[in-house]
């Protein structure tokens, strides 16, 4: 419709417009909960059925990298919240700074995720013909990024788990289906969020967000926090199943 300042033609007041946009984003987040809900259900059922395989799969992940990424995302949530506050209080330079920090932290997350994904390919942990949950414990020299002590513990655990579940290798692929499906979807949401943040950053250079008009910052903030909360669930679900005692 026709644009009159920041007010769109179908609305009567800025307040109505702001309420409408917020409600729209909250409802969108409801759809997102349902969206992630489907894959979480698939995860839950399979974890319940193939617990040994899921525990083994979880132990092949790098807890250090996962924890580091969790901290990074929590920090980005903080900078995002500060960005929303800066917009509401009219601190335009702070807004630009916090948006930039949020983007940088997002990219740190992507970088770590890239390292993790690459490891999984090298360690034969991608579902498919070459999947082999025992690859690293059988070929320690091919996995220089895992220390020998860890591998020794893993060897013992895999032997025990194989006794309980002879089809461990097949079922561990289900764990990795969940891993790639869930973290992949989460990363896709992060990429969309980063795009939105760049858009906000461009507008913040133009200085259009202030105490009167900051709805876009507000609702992108909601979205970003939601994506962070998804990770808060994914981290224990994927990284913390029955870790090495």
């Amino acid at each position, binding site marked *: *419709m026709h644009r009159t300042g920041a007010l*769109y*033609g*179908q609305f*009567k007041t800025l307040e*109505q417009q702001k*309420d*409408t946009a917020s*409600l*729209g984003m909250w*409802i*969108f987040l*409801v*759809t*997102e909960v*349902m*969206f*992630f*809900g*489907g*894959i979480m*259900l*698939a995860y839950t*059922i*399979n974890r319940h*059925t*193939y617990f040994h*395989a899921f525990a083994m799969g979880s132990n092949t992940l790098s807890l250090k990298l996962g924890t580091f990424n969790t901290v990074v995302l929590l920090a980005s949530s903080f900078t995002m919240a500060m960005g929303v506050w800066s917009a509401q209080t009219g601190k335009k330079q702070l807004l630009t700074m916090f948006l930039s920090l949020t983007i940088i932290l997002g990219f740190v997350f992507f970088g770590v995720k890239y390292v993790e994904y690459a490891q999984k390919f090298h360690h034969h942990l991608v*579902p*498919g013909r070459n999947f082999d949950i025992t690859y690293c414990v059988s070929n320690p020299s091919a996995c220089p990024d895992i220390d020998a002590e860890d591998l020794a513990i893993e060897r013992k655990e895999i032997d025990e788990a194989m006794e309980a579940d002879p*089809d461990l290798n*097949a*079922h561990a*692929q*289900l764990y990795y*289906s*969940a891993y*790639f*499906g869930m973290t992949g*979807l989460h990363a896709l949401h992060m990429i969309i969020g980063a795009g939105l943040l760049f858009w906000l950053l461009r507008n913040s250079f133009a200085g259009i967000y202030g105490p009167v008009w900051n709805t876009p910052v507000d609702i992108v903030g909601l979205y970003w926090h939601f994506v962070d909360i998804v990770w808060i669930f994914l981290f224990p679900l994927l990284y913390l199943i029955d870790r090495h005692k």
Partner: protein
Amino acid sequence: MSTASATSTGPALKLPEKNYLNSTYGIRSWLLTTDHKRIALLYLVTVTFFFFVGGFFAMMIRLHLLTPSGYLLSADTYNRMFTMHGVAMIFFFLIPSIPAILGNFLIPLMIGAKDLAFPRINLLSWYIYIIGGTFTLYSMVTGGLDTGWTFYTPLSTVYSNSAVAPAVVGIFITGFSSILTGLNFLVTVHTMRAPGMTWFRLPLFVWAHYATSVVMILGTPVVAITLGLAAMERVFGLGFFNPAMGGDPILFQHLFWFYSHPAVYIMILPAMGVISELIPTFARKKLFGYHFVAAASLAIAVIGFLVWTHHMFLTGQSTYAAIAFSFLTFLVAIPSAIKTFNWTATLFGGSISFDTPMLYAFGFLGLFLIGGLTGLFLGCLGVDMHVHDTYFVVAHFHYIMVGGAVMGYLGGLHFWWPKITGRMYPEWLARIAALVLFVGFNLTFFPQFVLGYLGMPRRYHVYPPEFQVYNVMSTAGASILAIGYLLPMVYLTWAAFYGKVAGNNPWPATGLEWTTASPPPTENFEVTPVVTWEPYDFHNRPELGLDVPGSRGPAGNPAVAPAHGDD
């Protein structure tokens, strides 16, 4: 209210000089429009296209089944035909039809808003629909798909040699069009109502769409992730639904039906909303039990989420789960029955006229009744064992979807055509078409109840010779039905350009959309309306010029007190 005085008897009606159709010109003004009325027309064109694509596949199926040995198609081609019929009709016609066309056009008009809450997202959802449709069409022309519209795994993920991936991706994408439409409607109804338009003054069409939108935003994301996982399983080798890795195909069915059963309510609830508008208008009577009908829409939306495994009674699920879901299936029939009884009670003592939209409403009542009650047969565990996956099921859901949803859609299209185009359709031709449809429909699908009861399985390309007589009846009916669908397409298109000018409120009806010009101006209302009346209140709307028993009489007459208070 000054614009609402025209009736069909007024002399020399003229179209308004400036309206949404002629306010701007050129292909860009249509493809980049954010006007909900124009977007509704964009949807009308594309949805009609998919309807005829799906109809073509349906005719192929029916022609093939004329003879027991199936003379027309190979078994493999036949599989592709019924699959693509289902995909085109369900995902690209039935789900968007009433919400995205009539809902899009009417909700802002009915609540007195200038537009939907998010006009650009509205346009975006049309483009998403187009992109999804293109993927699916691509799959159809590059060999089609043969999994059935349900995409059951592992057939769809491992074994099928057809173009499953592009079709699934197309449906995945189109799902977001549906989600965004539902989101837009929900927010619009919450935040965009005109002054005085309280929740219980909303037309039941809006209530029905509110309930539909709830189903869209809660259900569609689940089928999106399900089909997304199935696509990733086919392309990247994930394993959730693949028994070779220990995955569970039944899980796919649960997730699929968690959406796809409520999707039935995405199709039927808007049609119920249309019927709730038609019946009071053509019975000249306030709808009986307004609050119950509104609440029944929400009840259907909620309970509809709790019945999905009745599609899976024979998959080996726990008997106790089956019993619970059978019970819940019966429960969801109650709000539907409330609506049907209330519509019928509205007719009682009304002053009924048999205009075309009302013929569709009557058609809906009868066919939905049969479709709904046979749904209860299927909800019975014992009966379902017998008729599961037979033509009984096919006949049942066609009575709901074609007899219910499509009848409601066509009834609504006729009813609001004067509002959309400003011109009337040819009444007698339209009545004949409605009758042709009714006859053709029953001839097509009633024999299928018999076939199913006698044990003919669905989706088979051959059948025993003793079933031929019913199949010939069905195919003959389908041919009549095809004529019944072509007729409205032709005369409605003709009427849009050459029909008699309709005036603002030709029926007359009580909704807010009838108080503005036909076709409406781009901003819908010249001044924001203030609503001071209850819905369907023919008695207290003297400006409509109706001589309703017990009303205040035609415009200008002194008020006559109703004999028995409000009825």
